[in-house]
């Protein structure tokens, strides 16, 4: 009897906590939206400086087809760059872990290339790869590559010494040590890099489109800015962010499906 009561109380507390988890952020966002609307209305902010939220919403609704047509190439570039850049990062990290000479020879080069700002790398890649999707994918890949390389290399090295000794006692080959020990150990490190890479991949694609493109989120941002079409600009930015968030959530979902062994909170 008492136990049932405690159980019910505990479940009610859980429900309240869950509700708060939704309610508070929604209330916060709503309050900021209202503030935005009030400021624009009260100070009579002119539309080309900042649009009011309802104008953005209307633009989003009316131009939804056009926005989606422009989101598609950006999404392809971002996802393509994400896949290529991360695969390269994972592959080269694997080589580095198994061959110190390669690491010592090429890691400083990777650090140097990474230190060039993306807006400076972008024109170089556009010159090399022309004007299609390729340079945008390349820029996106370059921007994803480095954090994944560093994190993956760290993850592959994060094996406990005793686990390595265990593999030695079992006469495990390098290949077996890689597949059975290093790779699974590195996955949490890899996924934290991948989650960061989702948003940087989108940034890369957009920056690539700024340099020279007729379509895509980046091109639309430039267009809307030159035309003082602030409502369209905000709507485009919202679309881009929504895609970034969806991309992030997809990778996080994948992470939860793959890494099931971590203790809650551990």
């Amino acid at each position, binding site marked *: 009897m008492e136990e049932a009561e405690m159980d019910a109380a505990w479940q009610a507390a859980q429900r309240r906590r869950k509700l708060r988890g939704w309610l508070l952020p929604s209330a916060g966002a709503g309050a900021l939206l209202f503030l935005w609307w009030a400021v624009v209305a009260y100070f009579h902010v002119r539309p080309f400086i900042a649009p009011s939220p309802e104008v953005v919403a209307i633009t989003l609704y009316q131009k939804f087809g056009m926005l989606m047509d422009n989101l598609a190439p950006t999404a392809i570039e971002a996802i393509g760059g994400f896949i290529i850049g991360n695969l390269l990062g994972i592959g080269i990290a694997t080589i580095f872990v198994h061959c110190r000479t390669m690491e010592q020879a090429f890691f400083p080069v990777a650090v140097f290339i990474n230190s060039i700002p993306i807006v400076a790398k972008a024109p170089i890649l556009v010159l090399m790869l022309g004007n299609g999707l390729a340079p945008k994918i390349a820029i996106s890949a370059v921007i994803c590559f480095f954090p994944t390389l560093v994190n993956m290399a760290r993850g592959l090295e994060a094996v406990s010494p005793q686990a390595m000794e265990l*593999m030695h*006692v079992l*006469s495990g080959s390098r290949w077996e*040590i890689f597949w*059975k020990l290093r790779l699974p150990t590195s996955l949490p490190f890899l996924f934290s890099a991948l989650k960061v890479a989702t948003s940087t991949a989108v940034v890369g694609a957009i920056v690539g489109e700024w340099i020279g493109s007729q379509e895509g989120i980046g091109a639309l941002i430039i267009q809307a800015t030159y035309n003082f079409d602030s409502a369209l600009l905000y709507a485009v930015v919202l679309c881009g962010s929504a895609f970034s968030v969806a991309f992030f959530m997809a990778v996080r979902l994948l992470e939860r499906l793959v*890494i099931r062994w971590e203790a809650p909170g551990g």
Partner: protein
Amino acid sequence: MGGDLALDCRDVTVRFMSERRAVTALERVSLALEPGDFVTLLGPSGCGKSTLLRVIADIIAPTTGSVKVFGEAPSGARQRREIGFVFQDASLLPWRNVLDNVRLPLEVGGRRGSVPVSPEALLDMVGLAGWEKSYPHELSGGMRQRVAIARALLGGPRILLMDEPFGALDEITRDRLNEELLRIWRETGTTIVFVTHSIYEAAFLARKVLVLAPRPGRVRELVTVDLPEPRGLAVRETPEFVRLAAHLRRVLEGL
């Protein structure tokens, strides 16, 4: 090779370079064990007991001296899976469930054959029947060590090396696991080399206690344990045990 010793260490010396000076971890340590023996290596930290265990397991090569495990070099014994090793932390792979952790030795080192005792039967032997599908983070420290013991026993090793396996456990759990280890030892007949810094654990488990001194790690005395077998925890209250523990303490302190 029938008359071979299970373990024959002769004048094993291990030196390694650290920072700018050479450290002698072990100096001329000798130890001979008959098959089925149970020896504990007892000493304070820095006495090289873990190093000796790693020399036997072919993880560290001795600087000088020779080691034979059932008449052959440690590397051969390791490759033929005659050595089982239990580490201080259980070293389970967190992404594998209990059964798959025990099965790991079947998947590496080019072993895909049959084993004398199935992983399920070994889990039953260490008292973990029914836990096959659990993951390491769902187990207590003592249960994790039981899994590690089952894993080390897979393939029927002729010598089991244990590096302070119960050192991180609470005393009650440690006592229970000590008793169970003796039962497993009797059931499997394997030779066990067990590292500990607990006098009581060393005396309770072993037929022989090798007492080591630190810096450099060297043998103080090989003490033969004359307690009745099979032993239960109650043996620790007998005058013989108390005398033995007192003797071990004196040897440890070099008196």
